[in-house]
């Protein structure tokens, strides 16, 4: 898995590629929490269009990001969910909890 960061005005965008599983979800969690808690970026966006698979530990990292964002008053947005990633969020009844968009344009316009 690879994770890189872009900045657009007051928005940080994380481009993630590969699978998010037990081997690398700690890296996702660390990057998200650093951005939200330490940098206090007002809007954090996760580009998941190149993520084929997310396991429960990956979902947990996203939930932690969401909770941290709520705590500091930031927005936490996901876009580009694969069928598998969408299924996992549906199974855990979290799809409606997150702000989810189809693509980056929609995510940034929201």
């Amino acid at each position, binding site marked *: 898995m690879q994770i890189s960061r872009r900045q657009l005005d007051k928005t940080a965008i994380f481009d993630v590629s590969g*699978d998010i*599983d*037990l*081997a690398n979800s700690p890296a996702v969690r660390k990057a998200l929490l650093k951005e939200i808690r330490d940098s206090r970026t007002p809007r954090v966006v996760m580009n998941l269009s190149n993520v084929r*698979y997310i*396991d*429960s*530990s990956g*979902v*947990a*990292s996203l*939930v*932690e990001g*969401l*909770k941290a964002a709520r705590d500091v008053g930031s927005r936490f947005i996901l876009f580009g969910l694969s*069928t*598998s990633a969408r*299924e*996992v969020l549906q*199974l*855990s*009844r*979290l799809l409606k*909890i997150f702000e989810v968009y189809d693509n980056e344009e929609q995510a940034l316009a929201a």
Partner: protein
Amino acid sequence: MTSLRRRSKDGGEIEIHMKILHGARRSKPKGRNGDLSRGLLLRLELPSDPSLLCVVRGAVERLTESFGFSAPDCRAVTRAVDEALTNIIRHSYNGRPDRPIGMLFRSVPGAATPKASGLEILLCDRGPSIKRAQLCMRELEEVRPGGLGLHFIQQSMDIVEYKRTNGTNRLRLVKYVPAPKQEVNS
């Protein structure tokens, strides 16, 4: 037996053993291990290293496709196996990457009719016995991290059974291939 070598995060080498049985041998019982080898499709032996999870997912995806599952069911079985392995690594072995995990994939008769078929997956580890309280799932209404793996397994598979035998934790997962719908002539 095929062995794959892969470099681990700490620079060492890890090995995964894979035994694939061809279609013609699938249903042939074998010697004194006849029960377990009946319908054997694939056997995997691997260390409890999280970096191998993607290797197992790849193998399970291909196996379920060739077994005849629909695309959503292939994803469901792959997810269940991945979550079961994750639980073994995290809870049974406390994150130690060098403990043994064994997996058997077998073809079993269908639940409704023997002509249909199911995929049985047996996951074995040598960690301490799992307490029943550890197998409880949390409420999905709570929005908090963790505790979702068992939900994913239960929602993905038709049978989920845990047993402790001779110092080994055995998790048995079964998914049946839905019988094709019969056309009704009026």
